[in-house]
């Protein structure tokens, strides 16, 4: 009787089955993935499905409370808050995903090299990261955007730069732990060069803890971008973005028009919350030890 093939790590079927298992095992994970799907959907299809044009003003309808025709009410220029909130998803999500992707790639590469080879490269990189982290990060982002220019791309770059040290340090620590472990040495005995050991054996094992960091960072990147917009950097009116919408709405809270600021803020919070919850789920999908 023939037995299972020993040569493949996991077939397509295996990964899918594991994904379903993870989702079913933890209801929180399922919830977070569901919410994430909702946000991605809003980002992709929102602009085509919203009832009103987010940019059209209508002075007669200014500052209307939530009603059937305007679910989230209108702002001071008569624009529909609901449409603006949904359309803003695309911008906020793209900024944070782009920034995190950039910092993840750069940080991982630098951290892996520093963690595996050490030496002067490690010392130099450490010094650079120490210097970046010597600034309060939001403040550094302010400084970078102010210096480079007040554009959305620069918000992405600034957010990416201040996030790189996190990944680099995390990857460095994980690689360092595993550098002298049995399986890394065994991989060298099997004829792998240092590069192959680092890339194919050590780094994939560092991924699970990094997944948690990635999700936390996604949430934090959105908060960062919204914060920068709140103080006037990055996004300009009339572009809909959650941070800038809260800033505009803030002026009207003291006079009791709560909906202008509340709904974008709530959506922002929900998005960040989703990313934070996803962390554990992502880690479980990537970690082979969770497979049964």
């Amino acid at each position, binding site marked *: 009787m023939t*037995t*299972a093939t*020993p040569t493949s*790590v996991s077939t397509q079927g295996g990964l899918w089955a594991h994904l379903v298992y993870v989702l079913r095992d933890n209801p929180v994970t399922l919830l977070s993935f569901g919410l994430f799907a909702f946000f991605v959907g809003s980002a992709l299809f929102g602009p085509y499905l919203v009832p009103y044009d987010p940019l059209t003003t209508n002075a007669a309808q200014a500052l209307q409370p939530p009603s059937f025709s305007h679910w989230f009410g209108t702002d001071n220029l008569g624009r529909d808050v609901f449409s603006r909130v949904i359309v803003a998803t695309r911008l906020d999500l793209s900024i944070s995903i782009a920034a995190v992707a950039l910092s993840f790639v750069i940080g991982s590469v630098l951290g892996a090299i520093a963690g595996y080879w050490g030496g002067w490269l490690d010392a130099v990189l450490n010094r650079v990261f120490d210097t970046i982290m010597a600034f309060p990060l939001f403040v550094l982002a302010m400084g970078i955007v102010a210096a480079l220019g007040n554009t959305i791309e620069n918000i992405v770059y600034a957010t990416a730069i201040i996030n790189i040290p996190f990944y680099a340090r995390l990857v460095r620590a994980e690689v360092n732990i595993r550098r002298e*472990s*049995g399986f890394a*040495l065994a991989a060298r005995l099997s*004829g792998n*060069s240092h590069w192959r050991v680092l890339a194919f054996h050590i780094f994939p094992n560092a991924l699970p803890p990094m997944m948690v960091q990635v999700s936390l960072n996604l949430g934090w990147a959105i908060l960062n971008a919204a914060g920068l917009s709140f103080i006037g950097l990055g996004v300009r009116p009339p572009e809909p973005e959650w941070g800038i919408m809260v800033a505009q709405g803030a002026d009207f809270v003291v006079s009791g028009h709560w909906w202008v600021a509340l709904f974008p803020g709530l959506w922002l919070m929900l998005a960040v919350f989703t990313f934070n919850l996803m962390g554990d789920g992502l880690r479980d999908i990537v970690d082979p*030890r969770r497979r049964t």
Partner: protein
Amino acid sequence: MMLSIKDLAVGFRTRRGEVQAVRGISLELAKGETLGIVGESGSGKSVTSFALMRILDAGGSITAGEVTYSGIDLRRASERDMRTIRGREISMIFQNPRAALNPIRKVGHQIEDVLRQHARATRGDAREKAIQALRDVRINDPEARYHAYPFELSGGMCQRIVIALALACDPRLLIADEPTTGLDITTQKAVMDLSQELIRERGMASILITHDLGLAAQYCDRLAVMKDGEIVETGPAEAVFANPQHTYTCRLVEATPRPDASVRSLLPADRRPPELEYTPSDQPLLEVRDLRKTFAGKAGPVRAVKGISFTVNQGQSVGLVGESGCGKSTTSSMLVRLLDPTEGQILYQGNDLAQIPAEQFGKHPLRGDIQLVFQDATDSLNPRHNAGDCIAEPLRRLAGLRGKALRARVEELAELTGLPANLLSRFPHQLSGGQKARVGIARAIALDPKFLILDEPTAALDVSIQAVILNLLADLRARLGMSYLFVSHDLNVVRLLCDEVIVMQDGEIVEAGPAAQVMTAPAHPYTRALLSAAPRPPERVLETEPLAEVQSAL
């Protein structure tokens, strides 16, 4: 009777329901008696002691039975009463002594805490009494040691402190849970001798919990053997060891390496295939000449290996013995070419391997000839690769095998090492200790190495599994004609498998020669010290008929 346990059952609430760790055991301990509880991992021996001290983890509880100490019902006593009993009547010491002490508190203060908790000292005289407690465990210069932090002390010293802590309030019963695991053999002997002396001096009773049957037989009056939460046999230590009644005890006794055994005799009597012949030749295979390794340390250069020379012949098995810090691990790293020597030659088939830098050896044609079996099988398997992938890795990278040829060879290796083929798709966390060891061995022999270094390959295994793996190694040697360098701290194990033995101390070879000679008539004082420190269980009597029992799969 001082301590009486009747039908004790302990369960743990886990995600998958209730797990019974102890299933109804009964024990008795008289005043001044030393009882040894012996069992392999998972037998429930530690849980028993935690239960009677009522320090089980959250989720664990005594589900049935009675525990009585000097008339006190320990099972139903209040937490406050238990706190009075702990440390004052019954004390406990654990394995891993440095971790057992508060890392940021001076050891003297820690002893004072215990003394003052049990009202054995006031603030005024606590310091004096703490120093006296240190003196009682034969620590030199106790006044100075009082101010030390655990990280400044050696493992053996830490264990003494732990013992001082335990005995500070003069308890009547001492429970020692694997107190010597992780310690060097000579330190182990010192610790055991010290505890035994102190226990006898104070007329205390004691319970020694260990997996080492030989150790228990040497230091205990009575033994209780546990398996799967039950006691399978009890009796006077010498009798149980020399003349075991229960099958499981028999198996444990047989599996314990001892001077007069052969590899096959470690296995249960009904599972001994005929021993395979192997003949070491006198052609040298690997010759080491004046090998040195110096590391750059914080306080100056550290000379880990100070010029050693030896030869391993074809088909020969050489044992490399020494305690931690002697340089044996560094030596094996250099021989397997993961580390570059500072000086010296490693001659193999006419090539000086030391000349080839470790970085480049990975692609050298001789890479497959010299391989290593790691000490910790769990650590040596990539958690993301299943067993088949682990074994396939060297075949893919160095032999260039793919597809059907690869699969065939992996299955062949699995069969050679006794690994069922259906386990090849499992991940390391889904395999048992013995199975992981087999995967590690299969991977190491995948390329048909001529020289195999085994770095304490069975140190982390239960003794019965160790027996099986040692036999596997013996068989593979005979079938494949490999030479072995067997690195270990356990002399009894080395004696079983090796023709020649090399003893290292402090980076140098202090003695070398045929195994039989070195083991029975050692020349160097260090070798003598090592041999006398090894636990010496009582002699076995002729085997009697064991009771029939279904054997469980390993």
